[in-house]
């Protein structure tokens, strides 16, 4: 009930409604319009976390994306857990449940705090590298405890209950940020008729206007914002997207927008009309022009004890007071280097609470806001700063002293001021993050004391994003940027009718980053630069003393900017400190680079609907349903689902059981060798090649000869790259004088088609030839085994006589009443017919084959049996038995190389290089294990001398290995150095477990070397 820090009036929260929420198990109240952070501050919650390394208590510092401490774990159920949520950006909703990300066992009494206090001196930068890396074997153990203690948030252990979306969009002008600059830019582009998308990461559009002290057209700034938003929403081509973060800016104006659709309502998206709503949506936007109106982040000053809860950014203090009606304390001391910081003191005072003093680093502050503060009787201490905050769990004392900025020293006596809040302002850093995502490095502007975006084609920074801060100028600048962006997209320039904003007389700011202390930085109390990663000024100074001079190295050594906040608050201060230590200027130590994402994005939003069964397309053949119904186990081959083997039921002691893979494959192999088997080979790549020069083209891309292949004939071919290495193989059939059908490996189909196209289009465009993929058009079933002809005879009108339909012929005819092309190609070494029919007829043909095949013992087999059968014959699989370093000669395929062809076919020239001519290259051989029960491991290394001292010279490796039920032995294909000349020799295969297998080098053709079985 009691919200001690909530003001009676003011702000944009709805006090008529209460929202109950829990934080670390404790119940609190807030209002619609609150963020979790504003509600926590309203309830006087000081400590929201424990720090990463030293386990120090930490409180809310900021009011937006730059918050380093208020990082919470959200979710009241396991499935709804969300890590790394910034309390400052999370809208409050009824029953919100949050916990601190850090703190073990809890934030109030933290065991690790003791470690932090004791370990403080012993945890210099590079601590983890120096301490925990040795012995290396212990790193996993250390890491577990470090992570537990550090608490980087945790992912849910249950499946995400939510759904996420992607949307692809185009627009003329994308405006990032709906503060005064962004609103004004959107107005200019929108009025011109451009298609505009305006995004803002906050719950409500308006940016700084929502907490501004200034008037526009003699009315509160929010009135102008409302008026502009009203006009924009009436424009048909303008899309307003609040709660949407432009989190990545990529090449050619491609921007990803993360729209949080329901995260302000509940931790799991509610149902509307019985349907679950999308939790968040990733928009992938291609913008004609991007207007970057992302504003600026205030920089805190770096002083001792600046991390004790109660230390806040001056601007954040104003935002909490003016936008949320929350004063986060009672007695304020303000430390500032500029006029803008004074807003916090004025707002604080007007909220009825005490401003103890303002420590202004400037000698003669004289701006308008300074005068207003003095007029209210606030004590302004010129030329001074808060040099140290004291307090345990909350600020209790601010130590203020005169400082000498040039000399980096305290120049006067220290005064201790009792207070509970210290607000600081060290000026502003333009939010250049998105601009630097594109690779454009920000440029230091000495006048603005900040980095500004460097030019990016098609992008215009405006307002605070490039250092324009005065409200009237921001609005004018935004309008100009929006109008120019519209014009660049072909729309008319808009004349501005700008609202009236009183110009404020402002005193110059002074450059102040780290505040000096009486003690030297290395010996004094800790001054925090990056609170999320616990990086101190001393750590940066130490890093520079250890020889790190580039800010990129300093950052990696100290972890500066490596938290989930990417150092939004600390990076510039860190650079300034490194520059001071090295005696250089900020631009001399480097620049600051930010990468996507601007704020963390959940994996769900990145993945969208591409998960589960939609993760990757699955390709099914025309007979897939039959395979499923007949109990096939499937194997993924590229995107294809191919039957792997078909386990059958077997009798067992207590009923039935399914065969093991080994049993199934043995049965399938025997069926093919003894009776007849059938394979769904539809996934093989098929390319239709036509044109008067088709034959000439084949002769150039294949290693062997094609000039004399007659219509009706089929030939096996090898393809090499121009380096002479085999990359695919397959058969090509002559369908007509100018018409061929090429088959490729299943995985190589798309690659081979692109390969043919690149040679045709870039090297030989004069050849009249055309290629088209017909893989999906034709279904292929291989009927193979001694009984294949008898089975085929029952179903086809094609003459199957061995003299009229020979091995490597193809014939056209009907099979099961369906027009078909039948090829006598064999990948098993047995009599084989590859039946190709139009895919939508294939299931009919397949079922007919089974209706007639039972009496012949027709057995379906899968890819595993296919592999065993082809390997027994020494047939290679490109990509398994070859790896891009194997020539046709290495494979022993001299017969497939047409050295005397008239053209210099692809790969020919390379085969005469000295290296490809070597006789000790790895060459394809068969390996027969001495122990027939041994099945060698694929990938196992071959050595000649098993007693050689380690490291043993490795002489080759196993590429394919199976158990052959026909040979009743394990057998393998391998590549072995000089293997072709080593037939009959013994080689050794040392295994990981210490065993050494012995094998004999044999011919890779284990079965029917003369090819009599396939040629019957």
């Amino acid at each position, binding site marked *: 009930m009691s919200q001690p820090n909530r003001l009676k009036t003011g702000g944009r929260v709805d006090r008529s409604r209460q929202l109950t929420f829990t934080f670390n198990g404790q119940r609190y109240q807030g209002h619609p319009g609150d963020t979790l952070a504003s509600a926590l501050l309203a309830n006087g919650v000081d400590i929201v976390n424990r720090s990463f390394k030293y386990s120090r208590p930490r409180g809310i510092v900021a009011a937006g994306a730059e918050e380093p401490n208020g990082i919470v774990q959200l979710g009241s159920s396991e499935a709804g857990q969300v890590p790394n949520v910034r309390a400052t950006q999370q809208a409050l909703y009824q029953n919100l449940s949050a916990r601190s990300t850090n703190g073990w066992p809890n934030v109030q009494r933290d065991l690790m705090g003791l470690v932090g206090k004791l370990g403080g001196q012993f945890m210099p930068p590079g601590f983890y590298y120096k301490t925990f890396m040795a012995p290396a074997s212990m790193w996993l153990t250390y890491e577990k405890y470090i992570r537990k203690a550090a608490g980087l948030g945790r992912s849910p252990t249950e499946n995400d209950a939510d759904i996420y979306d992607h949307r692809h969009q185009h627009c003329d002008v994308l405006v990032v940020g709906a503060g005064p600059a962004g609103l004004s830019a959107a107005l200019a582009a929108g009025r011109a008729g451009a298609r505009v998308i305006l995004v803002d990461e906050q719950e409500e559009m308006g940016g700084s206007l929502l907490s501004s002290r200034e008037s526009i057209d003699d009315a509160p700034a929010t009135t102008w914002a409302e008026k502009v938003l009203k006009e924009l929403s009436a424009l048909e081509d303008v899309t307003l997207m609040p709660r949407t973060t432009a989190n990545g800016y990529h090449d*050619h104006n491609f921007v990803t927008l993360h729209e949080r659709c329901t995260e302000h309502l509940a931790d799991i998206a509610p149902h509307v009309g019985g349907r679950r709503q999308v939790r968040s949506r990733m928009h992938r936007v*291609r913008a004609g022009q991007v207007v970057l109106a992302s504003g600026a982040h205030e920089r805190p000053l770096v002083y001792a004890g600046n991390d004790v809860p109660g230390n806040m950014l001056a601007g954040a203090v104003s935002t909490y007071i003016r936008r949320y009606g929350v004063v986060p304390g009672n007695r304020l001391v303000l430390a500032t280097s500029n006029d803008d910081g004074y807003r916090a003191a004025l707002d604080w005072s007007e909220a009825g609470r005490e401003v103890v003093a303002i420590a202004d680093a400037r000698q003669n502050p004289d701006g308008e806001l300074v005068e207003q503060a003095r007029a209210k009787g606030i004590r302004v201490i010129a030329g001074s700063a808060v040099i140290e905050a004291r307090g345990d769990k909350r600020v209790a004392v601010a130590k203020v002293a005169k400082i000498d900025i040039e000399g980096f020293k305290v120049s006067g006596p220290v005064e201790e001021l009792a207070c509970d809040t210290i607000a600081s302002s060290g000026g502003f850093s333009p939010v250049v993050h998105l601009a630097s995502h594109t690779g454009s490095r920000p440029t230091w502007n000495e006048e603005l004391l900040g980095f500004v975006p460097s030019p990016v084609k098609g992008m215009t920074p405006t307002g605070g994003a490039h250092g324009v801060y005065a409200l009237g100028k921001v609005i004018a600048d935004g309008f100009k940027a929006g109008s120019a962006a519209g014009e660049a997209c072909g729309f008319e320039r808009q004349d501005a009718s700008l609202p009236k904003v009183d110009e404020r007389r402002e005193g110059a700011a002074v450059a102040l980053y780290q505040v000096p202390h009486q003690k030297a930085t290395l010996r004094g109390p800790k001054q925090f630069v990056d609170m999320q990663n616990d990086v101190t000024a001393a750590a940066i100074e130490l890093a520079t003393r250890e020889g790190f001079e580039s800010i990129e190295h300093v950052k990696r050594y100290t972890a500066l900017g490596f938290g989930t906040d990417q150092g939004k608050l600390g990076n510039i201060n860190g650079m300034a400190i490194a520059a001071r230590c090295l005696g250089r200027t900020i631009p001399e130590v480097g620049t600051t680079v930010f990468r996507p994402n601007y704020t963390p994005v959940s994996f769900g939003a990145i993945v969208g609907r591409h998960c589960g069964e939609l993760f990757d397309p699955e390709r099914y053949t025309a007979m897939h349903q039959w395979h499923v119904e007949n109990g096939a186990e499937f194997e993924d081959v590229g995107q294809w689902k191919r039957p792997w083997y078909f386990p059958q039921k077997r009798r067992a002691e207590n009923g039935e059981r399914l065969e093991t893979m080994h049993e199934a494959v043995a049965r399938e192999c025997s069926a093919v060798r003894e009776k007849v088997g059938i394979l769904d080979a539809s996934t093989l790549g098929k390319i239709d090649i036509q044109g008067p020069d088709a034959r000439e083209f084949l002769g150039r891309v294949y290693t062997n000869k094609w000039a004399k292949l007659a219509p009706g004939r089929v030939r096996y071919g090898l393809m090499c790259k*121009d380096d002479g290495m085999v990359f695919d193989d397959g058969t090509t059939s002559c369908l007509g004088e100018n018409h061929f059908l090429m088959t490729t490996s299943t995985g190589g189909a798309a690659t081979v088609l*692109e390969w043919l196209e*690149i040679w045709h*289009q870039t090297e030989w465009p004069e050849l009249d030839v055309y290629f088209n993929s017909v893989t999906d058009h034709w279904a292929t079933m291989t009927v193979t085994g001694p009984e294949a002809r008898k089975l085929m005879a029952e179903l086809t009108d094609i003459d199957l006589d061995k003299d009229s339909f020979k091995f490597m012929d193809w014939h056209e005819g009907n099979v099961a009443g369906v027009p078909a092309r039948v090829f006598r190609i064999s990948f098993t070494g047995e009599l084989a017919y590859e039946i190709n029919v139009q895919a939508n007829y294939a299931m009919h043909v397949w079922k007919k084959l089974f209706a007639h095949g039972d009496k012949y013992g027709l057995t379906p087999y899968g890819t595993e049996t296919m592999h065993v059968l082809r390997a027994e014959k020494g047939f290679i699989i490109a990509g398994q038995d070859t790896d891009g370093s194997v020539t046709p000669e290495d494979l022993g395929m001299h017969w497939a190389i047409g050295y005397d062809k008239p053209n210099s076919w692809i790969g020919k020239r390379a085969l005469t290089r000295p290296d490809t001519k070597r006789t000790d290259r790895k060459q394809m051989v068969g390996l027969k294990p001495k122990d027939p029960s041994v099945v060698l491991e694929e990938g196992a290394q071959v050595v000649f001398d098993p007693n050689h001292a380690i490291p043993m010279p490795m002489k080759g490796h196993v590429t394919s290995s199976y158990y052959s039920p026909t040979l009743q032995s394990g057998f393998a294909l391998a590549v072995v150095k000089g293997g072709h000349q080593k037939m009959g020799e013994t080689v050794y295969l040392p295994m990981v477990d210490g065993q050494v297998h012995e094998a004999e080098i044999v011919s890779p053709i284990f079965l029917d070397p003369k090819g009599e079985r396939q040629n019957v």
Partner: protein
Amino acid sequence: MFYIFCPYCGEHREEEEFHPKGQAHISRPADPEATSDEEWGDYLFFRDNPRGVHHELWVHAVGCRKFFNITRHTVSYEILEVYKMGEQPSITAEHYAAQQGAASADKERNASQAKHQEGVRA
């Protein structure tokens, strides 16, 4: 992610539709057998890696399947022009440097932008 103008389709399409195929204008020696091993090695393996203007071969892989060339700046990733197979680039490294240095740089850049928008038509 690039936004690429296919000179055959006559439209800008997302990079996902294209495959990069390396440096453009690498032509296979007319008589490979007449080359030395070194010359053949140069053709096979050696490619430029410039910081700045680069000519690249791309294919509209899931579009029209046509190969074409892109002149791209390897620092800004800006696509300066696209042109069909068999055509020569109008923007080269020398030309680009001169253009950047010229007093009328802005004007010319606008011209090249317009060209980029429309593609280079044969």
